[in-house]
């Protein structure tokens, strides 16, 4: 440790020695999410087999072949299991590749992990940051070179993110890997990342870019067909940044977005796009499925089953992407379809069919079994006549004869499915009870329950096992006769979305539905959004205009609703006028509105209220209106200082008469007159309103005509008025 520190210090003095720092990497052997529950209750995610090899091997193999010399594996949940695994494997005894484990029990996020690593003071130079579920075969040299070059020129370039092109599914706004659509804005010249949004609000279909981005960058390309590979080349500053901002938890949501927004320190993030290389991260069950298929289709070459064997028995690639270990026993009548992997020691019975699946080691598959698109791990017994579709089946599971697994089923370790039992689609089954203290939504992502439960398992495996046994003997088993396991209820809101992240292919009806809504949206969009007729406009301004337009349309609606609600509350609870003004002002600020919008909204609210007070005739209505206006005069007038505001009110009134409250139509002139008399609107406003309406359609002019007489009088008055002013003026200056 001391020696390392010393060398680190010396390095900082002498820039030439920078070159000699071994390339280091941090591998986070914990995803800090609960997406792989219930499997991850018993085994850490990085040790789950991906095409029959524990995931962490892919990450380590890649790091080694990419020239990384020192890897720090950060273990958190189930740390003992990870460390034990690494000790048994050959990774700790590589000559030019050192793997060091760092254990921490109380880290609940990637941010915490990096803070712990910073405290250890082991990182000396640029390092590669990946999580243990990354599969890649990219060469780091080019990316590293670019990163180093940029660092030389600009010390603030702290991070290079690796991205890859991959088209998302337009219908369901989801990438192949099952992650949400990702939007990035990149400066095409410098490759600087200026905007990153992985949780865009799909329902609104809009994206908000800060205007300053467009001001600061001469050109910007906005991508939604890029996939974030979660491979980062970081400078040591990244670690200290995490320590400085102790609230950073998530690498992307907090750190990247934080850096992009923070313009005080001026730290910059760049991207490196890979083309022919492969890189992906397994984030959920869908990506587990996709990446497995990519491996079987050899996109990850040389990280493919027949080339990369970790001391296991050799696997041979046969025709049509069939990978078979050498020691398997397969019945003559069994059919093994293309793109299937079968691990060693597996027995397959008569007339069984295996298609597009991965079968682990030592499985016993009976006769007449159909397995399609499944991931069957090690030592599993599947009895005769079972039917499995698009399921993940963990180690030691027993599926009794005739049982059926519908698409999307997850069977965690050692679950027993009773004979003839049908496990419904998307169910997750585990021997463990579903943790009750789970919070919904956001909290779940960083729930520390992972680590707590993880350590529990480590410490008292036996204890829990005995508990499990007890619960198993409950007479009403959820999995048929002799079955063992608890079916987890999906968390709230999950029911709707469970198909998104499942291993099963997306149901056809969901896609159709999504396409339909997308088409509807398109129509909606083309109806409403005003597109400039030609490309003459500067693209930048064009963008922002569109954005604003759409935003304001949406926002105004909400704003009006809010104002109305506030006003009604004021009426019913007898709130003082000054307080009402204060509340509306705060709404104005939060929605970023003009005074005229407030005036319009408040006016609308008042009229609506007047309309809602019971009345018998139009006279009654008029009375109501007058009553309301006198009562809340102060509130309304405080927004009617300028011409614009007053015009807005008149326009609003006109709009109401036309659309929402036709009762007012007959009273238009009267109320207008009333408004004028009570000094709500001045003649200037009325005249400009008339002016504005001159070019409008005949239909729109109904009210102008109605008010014609009134306007003429006003006009005259105004003329008189101005004359008088002029007269005064001549007096003064003459």
């Amino acid at each position: 440790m001391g020696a390392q520190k010393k060398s680190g210090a010396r390095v900082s003095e002498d820039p030439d020695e920078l070159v000699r720092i071994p390339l280091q990497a941090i591998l986070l052997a914990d995803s800090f999410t609960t997406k792989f529950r219930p499997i991850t209750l018993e085994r850490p995610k990085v040790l789950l087999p991906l095409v029959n090899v524990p995931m962490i091997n892919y990450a380590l193999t890649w790091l080694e072949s990419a020239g990384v010399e020192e890897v720090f594996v950060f273990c958190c949940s189930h740390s003992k299991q990870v460390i034990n695994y690494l000790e048994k494997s050959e990774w700790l005894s590589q000559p030019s590749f050192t793997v060091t484990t760092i254990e921490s029990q109380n880290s609940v996020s990637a941010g915490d992990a990096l803070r712990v690593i910073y405290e250890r003071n082991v990182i000396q130079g640029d390092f590669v940051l990946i999580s243990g579920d990354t599969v890649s075969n990219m060469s780091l040299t080019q990316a590293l070179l670019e990163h180093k070059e940029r660092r030389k020129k600009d010390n603030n370039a702290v991070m290079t993110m690796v991205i890859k092109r991959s088209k998302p599914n337009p219908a369901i706004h989801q990438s192949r890997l099952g992650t949400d659509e990702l939007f990035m804005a990149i400066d095409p010249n410098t490759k600087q990342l200026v905007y990153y949004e992985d949780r865009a609000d799909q329902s609104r279909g809009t994206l908000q870019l800060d205007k300053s981005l467009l001001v600061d960058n001469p050109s910007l390309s906005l991508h939604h067909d890029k996939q974030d590979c979660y491979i980062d080349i970081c400078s040591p500053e990244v670690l200290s940044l995490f320590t400085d901002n102790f609230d950073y938890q998530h690498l992307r949501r907090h750190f990247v977005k934080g850096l992009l927004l923070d313009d005080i320190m001026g730290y910059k993030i760049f991207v490196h796009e890979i083309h022919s290389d492969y890189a992906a991260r397994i984030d959920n069950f869908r990506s587990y499925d996709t990446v497995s298929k990519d491996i079987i289709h050899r996109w990850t070459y040389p990280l493919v089953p027949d080339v990369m064997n970790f001391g296991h028995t050799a696997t041979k690639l046969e025709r049509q992407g069939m990978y078979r270990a050498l020691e398997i026993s397969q019945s003559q009548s069994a059919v093994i379809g293309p793109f299937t992997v079968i691990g060693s020691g597996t027995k397959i019975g008569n007339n069984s069919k295996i298609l597009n699946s991965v079968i682990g080691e030592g499985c016993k598959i009976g006769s007449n079994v159909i397995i399609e698109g499944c991931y069957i791990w090690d030592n599993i017994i599947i009895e005769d006549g079972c039917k499995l579709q698009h399921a993940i089946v963990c180690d030691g599971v027993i599926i009794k004869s005739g049982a059926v697994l519908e698409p999307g089923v997850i069977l965690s370790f050692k679950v027993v499915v009773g004979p003839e039992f049908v496990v419904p689609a998307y169910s997750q089954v585990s021997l463990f009870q579903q943790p009750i203290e789970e919070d919904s939504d956001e909290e779940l992502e960083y729930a520390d329950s992972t680590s707590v439960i993880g350590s529990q398992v480590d410490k008292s495996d036996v204890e829990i096992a005995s508990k499990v046994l007890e619960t198993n003997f409950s007479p009403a088993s959820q999995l048929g006769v002799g079955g063992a396991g608890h079916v987890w209820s999906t968390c709230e809101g999950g029911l709707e979305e469970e198909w998104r992240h499942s291993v099963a292919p997306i149901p056809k009806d969901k896609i159709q539905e999504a396409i339909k809504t997308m088409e509807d949206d398109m129509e909606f969009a083309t109806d409403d959004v005003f597109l400039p007729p030609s490309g003459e406009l500067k693209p930048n301004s064009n963008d922002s205009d569109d954005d604003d337009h759409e935003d304001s349309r949406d926002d105004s609606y909400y704003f009006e609703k809010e104002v109305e609600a506030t006003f009604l509350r004021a009426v019913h609870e007898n709130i003082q006028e000054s307080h009402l003004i204060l509340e509306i002002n705060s709404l104005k600020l939060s929605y970023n509105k003009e005074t005229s919008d407030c005036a319009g909204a408040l006016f609308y609210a008042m009229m609506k209220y007047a309309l809602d007070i019971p009345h018998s005739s139009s006279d009654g209505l008029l009375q109501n209106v007058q009553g309301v206006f006198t009562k809340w005069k102060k509130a309304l007038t405080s927004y009617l200082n300028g011409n614009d505001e007053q015009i807005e009110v008149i326009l609003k009134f006109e709009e109401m008469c036309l659309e929402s409250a036709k009762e007012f139509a007959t009273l238009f002139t009267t109320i207008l007159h009333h408004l004028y008399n009570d000094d709500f609107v001045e003649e200037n406003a009325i005249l400009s309103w008339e002016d504005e309406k001159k070019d409008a359609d005949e239909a729109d002019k109904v009210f102008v005509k109605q008010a014609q007489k009134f306007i003429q009088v006003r006009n005259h008055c105004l003329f008189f008025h101005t004359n008088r002013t002029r007269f005064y003026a001549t007096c003064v200056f003459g």
Partner: protein
Amino acid sequence: MPDVQTLVNDFVNKLKKRKIEGSQATAKLTAELLRSVISQQRVPHTNQATALIHAVRAIGEQLIAANPVELAVGNIVRRVLHIIREEDLSLATAAMAGLGVSAASDDEDDEERDENPVLSAAAVAAAARSTLRPPSLQTLLEDTSDSVAAPHTSSSGGESDGRSRSIEKGSRVRKLKHDVIEAVNELIQDISTCYEQIAEQAVEHIHHNEVILTLGSSKTVLEFLYTAKEKQRSFKVFVAEGAPRYQGHILAKELAARGLQTTVISDSAVFALISRVNMVIVGAHAVMANGGVIAPVGLNMVALAAQRHAVPFVVLAGSHKLCPLYPHNPEVLLNELRSPSELLDFGEFSDCMDSASGAGSLHVVNPTFDYVPPKFVSLFITDTGGHNPSYMYRLIADYYSADDLVVKRRPITGSCRCSV
């Protein structure tokens, strides 16, 4: 010993990750590794040859398993095994001769051996092979006693009493090891000079104003053509680019840089142009025992075109590429499927591969090699001269001994022997 083991592990790792490209480099590295294995191997006093063979075999098995597609590894392992056997045999015959004709002058004996040790050894070995072609039960039994005996003698018990009588035996021990290492050195030398040896024959094959067609990139072909040019032959070269790796571009660049008149054509234009070609000269990945060739993908098509237009199809191959196995042997992995990214861009086609949403399932197959059957090959040019495909088995008999053909089976037969 741990030293060797780390070396071996390192090399296995490199082979596994496909970090070493080209059979020549692989062959050379394999030979060098085996040389250091032999030199560090402690040999017992009896049955040294068997001990050495065991050691080499054990490591050879690992190496072959690491990259079964690169046949050069297996070839070199077998060559080294063959060398050990022959050296042992020649020493034995020399000793016999020494016993039998003790009166004969030492000088004469030495001279004779120095003159043609390999030849005599080969002759003896060939004679032995002709009688023992299928491994007989007797040899198996003999092996048993050897292998059982070997660890015994190498253990501590044998060491102390071995030391006392090692003086006269030691010379023989060192002799065998020394000879083997010498021979392996020679092999390494052969591998590194095979380019020149092959290239020297260029003048005999390439004539003035000829048009030569080649596909992909091969250092052997490059040197061959360049030597012909050096010898004042003027000719044209057509280079088919060799999709999807486009190694032909590299070759064309090199050739043009060296002043040869070079034309690059696409693979699909080969048939159109073959009628203008006088000779096809290509490199190979491996040459099988039946004279069939494993070569970069696309060559079978070229061979068919050449056959159709009766253009000579000449394959250049260093002797390290001669593989004693037949292509129908299940042990031989003829092909390797590489990443589809060499064919098409992942990003562009990613929506076609999104099988989850049922948008379509695109499969891409990217094989590395082609198999060209022997009937299409007109001539092999190796570092020992030009040969007909039907003569390959003969060359192989010179380089390999039949006992070594299957390196991998050994542990299985070993277990059988234990049960016996």
